[in-house]
C-alpha cells in the first residue's frame, strides 16, 4: 500500500507526542478506539485562561495513518477555542493526509478524539468563566 508523503512525514516525525502531567485541571483527555480494532488514540488538550487550546499531546496505537491523523490534529487544535476545535472534521483530516478509503476510519477516530478531549475538559469545568 502506498502512503502519501504527508502520512509518512507525520509517521516518521510525529508532532507533540507524549502526555501532560496527571492531575492538571487545565487538561482535557480523550481516549477513543479499541485494541481489538487495532487503533487506540489518546489526545490531550491544555486549555489556557483565555479558553483557547495552548498545547496538545497525543499517543496512538495503530497503523501509520492513525498515527499521522492524531499527530496532525495536535497541530491543528493549537490556538483554537474549544468550539473552533470541534469544527475540525474527519473529511478535512482525510483530505489533508490523502488517506485512501480503507483508512478513512483513522480520520474519524481523530475527530472523535477531539470531541472526547473537549467533553472531558468541559466535564471537569462545568462553569465556563465569563470575561
Amino acid at each position, binding site marked *: 500500500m502506498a502512503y502519501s508523503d504527508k502520512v509518512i512525514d507525520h509517521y516518521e516525525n510525529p508532532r507533540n*507526542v507524549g502526555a501532560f502531567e496527571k492531575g492538571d485541571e487545565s487538561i482535557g483527555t480523550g481516549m477513543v478506539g*479499541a485494541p481489538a480494532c*487495532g487503533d487506540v488514540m489518546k489526545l490531550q488538550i491544555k486549555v489556557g485562561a483565555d479558553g483557547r487550546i495552548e498545547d496538545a499531546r497525543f499517543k*496512538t*496505537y495503530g497503523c501509520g495513518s492513525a*498515527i499521522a491523523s492524531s499527530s496532525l490534529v495536535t497541530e491543528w487544535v493549537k490556538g483554537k477555542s474549544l468550539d473552533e476545535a470541534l469544527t475540525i472534521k474527519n473529511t478535512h483530516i482525510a483530505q489533508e493526509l490523502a488517506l485512501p478509503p480503507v483508512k478513512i476510519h483513522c480520520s474519524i477516530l481523530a475527530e472523535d478524539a477531539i470531541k472526547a478531549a473537549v467533553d472531558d475538559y468541559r466535564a471537569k469545568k462545568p462553569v465556563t468563566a465569563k470575561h
Partner: protein
Amino acid sequence: MRLPIYLDYSATTPVDPRVAEKMIPYLTEFFGNAASRSHAFGWKAEAAVEEARAHVAALIGADPKEIVWTSGATEGNNLALKGAANFYKTKGRHIVTQKTEHKAVLDTVRELERQGFEATYLDVEPNGIVSLEKLKAAIRPDTILVSIMMVNNEIGVIQPVWEIAELCKKKGIIFHCDAVQGGGRVEIDMTKFKADLLTITAHKMYGPKGIGALYVRRKPRVRIEAQIHGGGHERGFRSGTLATHQIVGFGEAARLARAEMATENERVRALRDRLWKSIEDMEEVYVNGDLERRIPHNLNVSFNFVEGESLIMAVKDIAVSSGSACTSASLEPSYVLRALGRNDELAHSSIRITLGRFTTEEEVDYAAQLIRRKVEKLRELSPLWEMYKDGIDLNSVQWAAH
C-alpha cells in the same frame, strides 16, 4: 549489505541461480512439446521432464510415477481435495481439516461443503499443533478424507502428520497433506510417511513460480477425479502441455534441496536462534506457535502494545509480513493467531520473519537491531504501553468499539 533485506522466505524464495541456468536452454533451444512423440524436439523435452520427475520423487522418497505436475500449490490442493472427495463420495461425505490450514485448503473444503459434503474444522492447541485425540474424536463412520498441513505457513509449526497418516491408514480414510512449507525444509520419505496425497511447490524451494506437484500414492492405489480435462497428459490426472522449463527448474531445485537440506537447515537454525536471542529479552515479546516443533526458518513474534502494520512500516528496510490484515479493507487480525487463542492485541501486533538460503548473519543482526529500535519508538507512541506501565489491566477498560 543491500537494503531492503528479504526476510519473507515463506512467501516465496528467489530462484537459485543454478536453477535459473538449467532452465534457460529449455525456453530457447529445447523448446519442444514433451507430448510430441514424432521427433527429437519432443523426445528431448520428454527426457528432461522425466529426469526432473525423478529428482522431485527422490526428494520425497517417492516413485516417479507418483508425481503429477500442477501449476502450483493451490491447484495441487484443489486437485487432491476435490479429486478425492468426488471419487470417494459414494463411501461417505465427511471431511476433516483444521482451522489453521492455508486458504487453498480451507476455501476448497468450503466449496466442497457447497457441493453437499460436510466438514469439521478442528481447533489447534495454544502452541498451534493439532491434537491427535481431537482428530480421532472428529472422525465419523462416513469420513472419507482428512487434510492436515505439514508446516503452517504463518507460524512454522510442524504438525504430527506422520501419526495422522498412520491413523487414517488404519481407518481406511484418504489422508491429504499440504507440505508446501515443508518441501525442501523437512525430510519427507513417502516409503515411511503414509499420506495418500501430498502437495508441494517449486517456488518455496528456490525453484520458479507456476509449477508444483501432487504426489498420488500407487501402493495401495489412491484414486482421484481429474479437475482439468484435455489431452490426457499426466496419465489423465492433469491435462495441459507441460511447461518444460518450469519442470526442469523444479527438478533442479529439488535435487539441490535434497543434497543441501541438512547443512542448510543447521545454518538457518543458527541464524534464527541468533535473531530470537537478540530480541527475546525485550519486555512483552511473545513467540507465536511452538518454538521446538517448528521449521528452523520461521520466527513469528508479537510485540505487545505495538500495532503490526505500523511496525511493518517502521521496519521497511526489512521485508517481513504481518499477521495483521489491516492492510486490506478488513480489520481482522490473522485467523491463524486467533486460532491459537491469542487475544486481539497480540494478534494485531505480530510479524512473521522467515529466513532462507541467502540470509546472512549480518542481515539478521541488522534486522534485530532495527526491530528493537522501532518497537521502542512505537511503544513511546503507544497509549496502551503507557497504561501497561501504569499498571492498568487493559482487559478492565471499557473500550468504545468502532
